[in-house]
């Protein structure tokens, strides 16, 4: 993808200054998003970034495209309504782990199932950052740094890729904020994939979870081709450590809505007239 770059990532930045803390993984997602947009030569006017609420959901305002910063957990619903109504647009939904897996969990499940042709980027830092550090659905059971759950959440963390697979997502990948080039590459693939593409990003929060700097040593890039078999993918997603990056699963299936028959009758009132 480096051959024909005529656009630069900075051309896709709006100039609004991010609110994120120094060292936040979301800076690198922001860079990857703009890099992917530049790489694909995307038309800013035909691109919409949609988000919910949280640190990561601030990202659309930083990109020079159309955007919608909605309410907590509902970004996917806005994105799907927009894409169904305006199929010619490129729609990218994004948010954090609390937004997407907790308050918006139902929409995540049904977006995977519905398979509207959008991309969904979850910046997972295993914590609610904007509200100053509470446990999220992906927080380890024994993480005891929150005043809200001083002995740790005590609840098994959620496996986003496994849930996405079970719900029917046709494209599942994982990226790491420490490897923005791989992330940009995966994002470009996700945007081009015809269907619901789920990019799970391990995006560190060193403010509330400084131990996440250890991720650098743990993440490992998948060397094999993406799995196509659902059973194999289920085994992988249920048993892996969650730190394998790359395109993990891809199995294309029909998108929604199917192509509609052309409007067939402008008269709506015939059925009522006596």
């Amino acid at each position: 993808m480096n051959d024909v770059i005529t656009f630069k990532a900075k051309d896709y930045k709006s100039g609004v200054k991010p609110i994120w803390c120094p060292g936040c993984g979301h800076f690198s997602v922001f860079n990857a998003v703009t890099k992917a947009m530049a790489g694909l030569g995307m038309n800013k006017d035909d691109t919409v970034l949609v988000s919910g609420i949280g640190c990561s959901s601030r990202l659309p305002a930083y990109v020079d495209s159309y955007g919608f910063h909605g309410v907590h957990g509902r970004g996917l619903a806005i994105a799907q309504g927009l894409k169904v109504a305006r199929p010619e647009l490129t729609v990218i939904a994004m948010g954090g782990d609390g937004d997407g897996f907790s308050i918006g969990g139902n929409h995540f499940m049904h977006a995977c199932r519905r398979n509207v042709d959008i991309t969904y980027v979850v910046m997972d830092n295993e914590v609610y950052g904007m509200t100053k550090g509470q446990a999220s659905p992906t927080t380890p059971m024994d993480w005891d740094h929150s005043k809200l759950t001083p002995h740790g959440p005590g609840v098994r963390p959620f496996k986003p890729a496994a849930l996405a697979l079970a719900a029917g997502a046709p494209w599942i990948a994982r990226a790491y904020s420490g490897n923005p080039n791989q992330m940009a590459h995966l994002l470009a693939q996700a945007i081009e994939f015809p269907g619901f593409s789920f990019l799970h990003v391990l995006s560190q929060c060193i403010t509330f979870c400084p131990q996440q700097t250890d991720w650098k040593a743990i993440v490992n890039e998948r060397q094999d081709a993406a799995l196509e078999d659902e059973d194999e993918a289920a085994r992988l997603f249920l048993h892996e450590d969650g730190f394998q990056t790359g395109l993990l699963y891809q199995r294309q299936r029909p998108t929604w809505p199917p192509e509609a028959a052309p409007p067939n009758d402008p008269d709506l009132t015939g059925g009522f007239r006596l």
Partner: protein
Amino acid sequence: MSLSIAITGAGGAGVISCGELLLQGWAREGGRGLLRKAFGPQIRGGESAALLKLTEHERYTAATSYDVLLALDWNNFSRFEDEIRLRPDSWIICEPDEDIPAAVLALEPRIARLPIAALAAQAHSDGRVNMIAVGVLGKLLGLSHTSLAGLAAQKLGHKPASYQQAATACIAEGQQYDLEITVDTPRREAGNRWYISGNQAAGLGALEAGVRFVAAYPITPASDVLEWMAGGLEKVGGNLVQAEDELAAINMTIGAAFGGVTAFTATSGPGLALMTESIGLAVASETPVTVFNVQRGGPSTGIPTKSEQSDLDIALHGLHGDAPHLVLAPLNIADCVYTTAWAVKLARHLQTPAIVLSDQFIGQSSAIVTEPRRCEVQLAAKRADDNDYLRYRLTEDGVSAVAAPGEPDRRFTADGLEHNEKGTPSASNADHQRQLDKRARKLTAFDYGSDWADLNGNGEVALLCFGSASAAVEEAAALLAQRGFTTRTIALRLLAPLPHDALHAALEGSSELVIVEQNHSAQLWRYLRGAMDFAQRLHSYAIAGPVPLSAELIAHYCEEVLAP
């Protein structure tokens, strides 16, 4: 005069189809009337009732008592006792060997025995009792066999031919049976009329106003708005998404509207409660959506199959923060076309959500109506013509130019965070004050014209209501006029923003003001008392559902409080 006929039976026995065929047959011969559908909470095996009221006008109120009751069976009849009031001169038509409930017998009504099941079996091996009822009652109304059999064939068109043959045979069998009773029927006159329910009318109004995206989550009694629109959108183009919940439904609607496509959702009380957070988002992001709320008995699950006007509070005040938005209410079945279309157009022009308050009574009743009035008002979306585009620009009328994705050089991020004119998040005092002022101003500065209410008369006693209460209020005013009062009626179609000046003008010269509504806590009365000062003496007539408002009781109340 009017003639009221109740047909009751087990859920699934076909009493609603029976009522529909009779009303359509009656309408084909120039008659007018209303069909209310009453259901128990069970889906099958419960009870249902078709409640017909044949009239000489289109001011459709629920019947307060019934001239004829045809009971296919008496199982669970007691559940309708509140709704199907009988009199000593009522006719009861029922099977010869079935025991009539003691409460009914106590009224000493006139009884006609009809061997319904035996006639059905005799007419056809697949004969159904509801078609015997169509024949018997059709004869009572003087309807022709050709007309009723034709309507039945149309209704059963998708079923095997034997169903149509059975229906035709049963209708004939019923018409031949000599029941030896007669009733007086209302006058009929030919006219260009429709047979439509309020929920269908709302769907029609929405599509005619340009709605091309609908997000839907099923809920009684609003599902049939959405079901009708699913078919309607296939005719005119557009999309309907069945959402996973009401939170998704409202946000999908917002997403489509942000894309520049006119968008709509329909729900009932509990669904509206779930949607309110995001309706606030539509206010802040200035995204036009129409939320059509078919009210039912509340709170919580309440009485889902019965009517009430108890969502006024949540529609007006349910949003968090200072969130000015539109609230409208259709006045009757036919007006669902006009008011829904008007709401859609106002929302689009003013870039704000509109909540429309219909209810189960007008939503799920079908009526014969003169071709409904359409909303012809043209409201163009304001467009920017300069290159210095600001999505939330401060303007004199508060309305900023819109842009949708795909338009060059108009890029912005819509935001539920407070923002500056460009849309960039801002917590500054100045931006907050200016944007709050702007969002309020665009609603209050707009000229809504004369359709904010329907006004009748200029008497000293003003009867004020909103939405579907208007028919009962009109009827009460007529009763009061007969009893020596001079009255005027004001039926509000626009509830927010409240047209203070127009309302004051409409009340000028009246000395008494009776506020009529179908809820327990006098929500309209409290709203108006909080919003305006009145020169009149105020009286509140607020009665919760599920029994429909009664003109006689309203008139009686007025006589009591207005007595010198």
